[in-house]
């Protein structure tokens, strides 16, 4: 038999129908749903008199525009349009009989954090959600990607997706990471190397020693931003680290089913000699703590660098860099470590897990913030509870951070957590687009440790000087 990639293996196990032209109906094992991209899909079902095909494989949680301040169970504490979307999800979840974690449930949180935490996400699965960061779940060796609302409706109605197979790219990170360098720096460095369109049309498999050495949480951070590199999905082959993480989760298989699952999961790796359409290799030891200077995640530089000039680029990127510098209020040649920060945001599906909070707290211990405001928004109610138990919440609060309830919050600023005009933020989220964190707000993407370092000094800071 021809050697297969991990992607080939998962794909082949999920083709429910293949047409002559290669268009497939791919069967979906898990469908995650949130309040912003689903109302029109449920409405479509209702209008056509259709049901949810597999309600037991469909999991809903409100996260994108819920407030992260206390009292949010009461809809009158939400803006009117948020309340309408949350109420619509409540109603749809009940009416169509799908799994649901309302804001009042301690398990509520960002959909991509809740899925793995509850054991809904398992190796070898197909996972979709009406959200581009569904790529996160690829960390388990699951084929996971974002879909639009029409596709949400299609999956709800048929439990399949119309798909053609993507090309396959291997991204290998060899060797070890240096101290102070994290999964976030890996994923940003990869995008810096390939560009935001470098992965378009591909499914990426991340491999190499530096990836193997990561915890599941770090792997989720890496896969989370596969989409920022344009890829359809990111994958990491499951191994002992994966199985260890999954075991005992509420919806993970138990007993004989666990054994049967393990038998299959252990076959989920890329065979020796399997073909990749593109290969990118980075050396782990070359990766430094990085930060974005512009308005695209590919605008990434080591923290030790200076702000580039538009002339440093070619083609359409010259104009884009010009515009980005203007938007960000930066001058070419300025040292990145001289950039003053107003706000620090720690959270999101990229970096809102317990290890992220630990890494930030480690830097913050016994220190005070030197920025105007700083907030931590845990990725789920359970992450929040654990951080409180470990004493991390106290470290954050004593340093001057706001300690919020779980949700997407300032990652996309759909709720009241927004930057004001020209407010400059060091954020652990994944997008630095214009207006992403608030109208004319300025975002620098960093790792949790780098965000904490910036909070302490009031500037973008090389975290290696603080460890």
């Amino acid at each position: 038999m021809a050697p297969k990639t991990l992607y080939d293996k998962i794909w082949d196990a999920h083709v429910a129908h293949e047409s002559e032209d290669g268009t497939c109906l791919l069967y979906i094992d898990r469908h995650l749903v949130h309040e912003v991209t689903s109302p029109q899909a449920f409405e479509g079902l209702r209008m056509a008199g259709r049901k949810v095909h597999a309600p037991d494989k469909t999991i809903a949680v409100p996260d994108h525009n819920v407030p992260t301040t206390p009292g949010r169970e009461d809809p009158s504490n939400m803006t009117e349009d948020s309340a309408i979307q949350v109420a619509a999800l409540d109603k749809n979840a009940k009416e169509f009989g799908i799994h649901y974690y309302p804001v009042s449930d301690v398990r509520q949180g960002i959909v991509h954090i809740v899925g793995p935490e509850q054991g809904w996400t398992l190796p070898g699965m197909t996972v979709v959600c009406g959200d581009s960061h569904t790529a996160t779940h690829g960390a388990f060796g699951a084929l996971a990607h974002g879909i639009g609302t029409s596709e949400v409706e299609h999956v709800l109605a048929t439990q399949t997706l119309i798909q053609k197979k993507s090309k396959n790219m291997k991204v290998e990170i060899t060797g070890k990471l240096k101290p102070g360098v994290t999964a976030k720096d890996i994923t940003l460095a990869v995008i810096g190397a390939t560009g935001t369109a470098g992965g378009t049309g591909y499914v990426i498999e991340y491999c190499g020693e530096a990836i193997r050495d990561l915890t599941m949480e770090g792997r989720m951070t890496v896969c989370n931003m596969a989409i920022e590199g344009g890829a359809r999905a990111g994958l990491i082959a499951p191994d002992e680290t994966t199985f260890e993480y999954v075991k005992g989760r509420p919806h993970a298989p138990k007993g004989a089913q666990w054994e049967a699952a393990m038998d299959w999961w252990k076959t989920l790796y890329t065979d020796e000699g399997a073909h990749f359409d593109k290969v990118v290799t980075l050396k782990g030891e070359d990766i430094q703590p990085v930060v974005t200077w512009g308005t695209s995640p590919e605008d990434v530089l080591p923290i030790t660098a200076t702000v580039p000039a538009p002339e440093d680029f070619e083609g359409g990127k010259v104009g884009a860099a010009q515009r980005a510098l203007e938007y960000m209020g930066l001058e070419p040649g300025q040292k990145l470590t001289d950039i003053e920060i107003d706000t620090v945001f720690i959270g999101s599906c990229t970096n809102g897990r317990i290890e992220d909070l630990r890494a930030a707290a480690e830097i913050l211990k016994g220190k005070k913030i030197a920025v105007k405001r700083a907030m931590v928004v845990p990725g789920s109610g359970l992450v929040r509870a654990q951080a409180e138990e470990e004493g991390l919440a106290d470290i954050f609060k004593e340093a001057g951070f706001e300690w919020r309830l779980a949700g997407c919050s300032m990652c996309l600023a759909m709720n009241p957590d927004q930057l004001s005009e020209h407010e400059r933020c060091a954020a652990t989220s994944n997008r630095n687009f214009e207006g992403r964190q608030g109208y004319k707000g300025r975002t620098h993407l960093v790792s949790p440790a780098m965000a904490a370092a910036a909070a302490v000094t009031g500037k973008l800071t090389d975290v290696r000087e603080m460890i």
Partner: protein
Amino acid sequence: MDKFTKLTGIAAPMPLVNIDTDMIIPKVFLKTIKRSGLGVNLFDEMRYDRQGNEIEDFVLNQPQYREAEILVAGDNFGCGSSREHAPWAIKDYGIRCVISTSFADIFFNNCFKNGILPIVVSEEEHALLMKDAEKGSNARITVDLEAQEVTTSDGEVIAFEVDAFKKHCLLNGLDDIGLTMEKSASIDAFEAQASQARPWV
């Protein structure tokens, strides 16, 4: 879904690269539970100032482009969030075709589900079309999906590729869900086999 067959119209030039879905429709407009009415907020932050006044320079605010039905845009158009509100807003504005050198994956797929034709062309062809679009309302570009051809105002013909299935659906205005449901026997058979092979799912 609305059919797309052949269209002759004004093309608006937007040479900026990496136009993301946050630029196409900022998130403040995602709090709707409907699909329609987003056209007035298409490109909102580029199109209006904070007081809601039109920004003169922005292409769709210029008199010759107000009626544009085609967009010629820079590389990697539609990157970022998966929001289908982006194609809904484009369609609601009246644009039915976007031409670029490349598109982000999810956006590209979302277009077809909403009666919009995204066309990928080479850099040279793109430069040609961009120049044509810059001529304003005197230059009308024709897009013929059946023939898979774009014709410039000077009569130059550019052939383009399109997935056969997607073309078929767009030409006939077919709804994916209905088509898939015709294959429900295959889905049922797959489920029966998969629940044996992977009962833990």
